[in-house]
């Protein structure tokens, strides 16, 4: 395990142990299941934005993509009575399209990532509200004369995306399986394929990477596509998890949690750095802090403050660690 990943892991364990000591109820199965579920949901978005941050970019539209995808999915299933797998397909294609649009605007029209995705944040949020007339909606079908349309299949999806698998007395939430598969895939992509290497290289030095014959534009587009795709997957998970989607609220501010987790997990906003394991652990740390605040009995009004301080201290600690490692490398005489 790399040093900075080890650091965030120690933080996770420390908060976990302290909370468990102060309030043993923290350890009960129901609370643990919830913690795992929410950590997994956040980690999916965080992994997505990590691809973009590694290239030195940013994506502020994640929360709105989560909102729009869950709205569109609910419309397809509930109002249109669409075949469930087609509905899933439509939402995934929608998120891929959004990512592609971001990537093209950033690389071809040369608009800054911050601006492109900030506008995305506004546009997708209002699209979701407009499509639903700002009424809450969920993926579960209505009953009509013919009964519930596609009820069984949708219940199957509901189990897939927000069910629980009994492991003895413990019920593992299915989103945990999603994050397991997605993080292994992301880690393999980043560390074992040439495209992963290219993302890191261009995040460190885009010009230098281009001079080595790499199509840096295409790689950046890929990063934004992956980011929106992961946001879309998170949107599907959230839709089934929440049952009722609020077009104005679902996913709001989630991009900030995702970015915070990526940064706390070792991604530098300057680009060129990041690890999948670090990001997943950091997403868990963020959810854990929320949970601990409740468990320990700290005023929930302090939630944001504590979260902000932990992230800040974590990142400062990470910088110190990096400097120490760099000093050690520089001291190795050639």
């Amino acid at each position: 395990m790399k040093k900075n990943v080890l650091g965030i892991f120690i933080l996770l364990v420390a908060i976990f142990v302290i909370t468990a000591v102060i309030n043993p109820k923290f350890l009960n199965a129901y609370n643990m299941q919830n913690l795992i579920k929410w950590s997994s949901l956040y980690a999916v978005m965080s992994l997505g934005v990590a691809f973009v941050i590694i290239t030195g970019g940013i994506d502020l539209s994640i929360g709105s993509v989560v909102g729009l995808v869950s709205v569109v999915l609910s419309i397809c299933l509930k109002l249109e009575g669409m075949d469930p797998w087609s509905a899933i397909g439509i939402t995934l294609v929608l998120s891929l399209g959004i990512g592609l649009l971001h990537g093209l605007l950033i690389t071809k029209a040369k608009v800054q990532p911050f601006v492109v995705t900030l506008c995305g944040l506004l546009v997708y949020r209002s699209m979701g509200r407009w499509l639903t007339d700002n009424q809450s909606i969920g993926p579960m079908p209505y009953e009509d004369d013919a009964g519930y349309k596609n009820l069984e299949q949708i219940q199957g999806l509901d189990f897939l995306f927000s069910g629980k698998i009994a492991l003895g007395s413990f019920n593992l939430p299915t989103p945990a399986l999603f994050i397991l598969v997605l993080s292994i895939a992301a880690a393999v992509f980043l560390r074992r394929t040439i495209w992963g290497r290219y993302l890191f290289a261009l995040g460190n030095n885009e010009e230098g990477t281009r001079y080595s014959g790499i199509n840096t534009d295409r790689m950046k587009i890929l990063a934004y596509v992956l980011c929106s795709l992961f946001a879309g997957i998170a949107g599907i998970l959230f839709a089934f998890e929440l049952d009722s989607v609020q077009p104005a609220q679902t996913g709001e501010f989630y991009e900030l949690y995702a970015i915070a987790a990526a940064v706390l997990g070792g991604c530098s906003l300057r680009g060129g750095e990041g690890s999948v394991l670090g990001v997943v652990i950091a997403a868990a740390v963020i959810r854990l802090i929320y949970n601990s605040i409740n468990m320990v009995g700290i005023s929930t009004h302090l939630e944001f403050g504590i979260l902000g301080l932990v992230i800040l201290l974590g990142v400062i600690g990470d910088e110190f660690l990096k400097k120490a490692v760099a000093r050690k490398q520089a001291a190795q005489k050639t």
Partner: protein
Amino acid sequence: MDETSSPLLEVSGLQKSFPGVLALRGVSLHLQKGEVLALIGENGAGKSTLMKILAGVQPADEGEFLVCGKKVSFRNVNDAMDEGIALIHQELNLCGNLDLAANVFLGREPTKAGLIDESEIRRQTEKFLSQVGLDLPVDTLAGSIPIGKQQLVEIAKALSCNARVLIMDEPTSSLSQKETETLFKVVKNLRSKGISVIYISHRLGEVKELADRVTVFRDGENAGELMQDQIDHDNMVKLMVGRELSEFYDRQVHRPGKPVISLKDLRCPSYPQHPLSLKVSEGEIVGVAGLVGAGRTELLQTIFGVTPALGGSLEISGEVKEIRNPRAAISEGIALAPEDRKQHGLVLPMSVRENSSLPSLQRDASRGWLNENAERAVTQNAVKSMKIKTPNFEQMARFLSGGNQQKIVLGKWLAMSPKLLLLDEPTRGIDVGAKREIYKLMEKLAGEGMAILFVSSEMEEVLGMADRAYVMHEGQISGELSRDQLSEKAIMNLATGNLVAA
């Protein structure tokens, strides 16, 4: 010691090292009031390093530094400014969006009741602008005036800080003939007012015209000094090179084969009005000489597809090709070791291994999977054949010396077995040992049939290595010289726009 008898500025035994390089090995230098001292030397001789130390940009590791006989040590640029030493940067540092007055007083704005005293700034700025012969309204935006005038504004800014010593690092490298003349007039005028100037230049003609005295550096040491009556071209070159050329450039006879690249009226985006034609054949080492800003780097970048050509034709091995990006160039067997190694040649925060394998990753991959064995083999090969000095393959490129960094760049391209190797200032900022190895490598590659086109600002490098050379001047190829015609005089004539080859 009496103030008037001690030099205005005196340094001795100055040492400075960077990771892997000893840039200054105990140099000394002194400067009198009202003197123009020229500092010359090859690339990597340590001139710029010394200037940065004098101006407080970076500290020396060791050595003595006196101003008016008083010992000083600068922690930053402001400390140097307080002693009246100002550096006019090669790249100008004006804020283009602010007017001249705001630029001159940036960071030192006089205030009245807490607000910027605009009328005082204007009055003062007018005074300093007229001292450098600039007749411009003080509310002109700095970004809207040509570079030569911007430089004069920089000088005015230095004067406004009561500068006694102006350090100019290649001030004419991007100036037109006329702008250069204006600058000279200003420098001479300042000298008559008792201001001292340290003038760094590669252009020996300018040095001869301007300098009262010349100090020559070589490989981080003092190589000699010339008083005004001794300043001539031959004396300067002798001190700069300081060794028998033949011993350094171990040349074989090349027998050029079939043409590898042939440009016909190629138009580079930087100088589209000047079509460029040239040819390089198998086993041939061809130099491109010229002054800084003559368009040589831009020529290589256009061949390599960084800034695609606007017109004309480019033939590779007799076939017309269109090269829109570096990727296309690489697939035609072209490689470029760029001038700006840190920005364009390497990904500094990545390891020797990741840098060495970057261009060849895709070739060695199957369906996108990294081939780690091939990657290691490529790295092993580069480190071994280029004699790269690194503790291990995982060392960050950032922590290697300039010479070793350049070897990584060359190593990563050799793994692609290019037909045409483009080298832009291949030995800039690297030590003598690595230089010699790079020359040997060029020889070896040419012997194996590779075509090599190299740009160099070092006269001796072109004279020593080239089978043939093109000389560029303000965006056009002003002449072509065969091995027998190659001489300093011939190159300088063509490089300065004197189209009659000697």
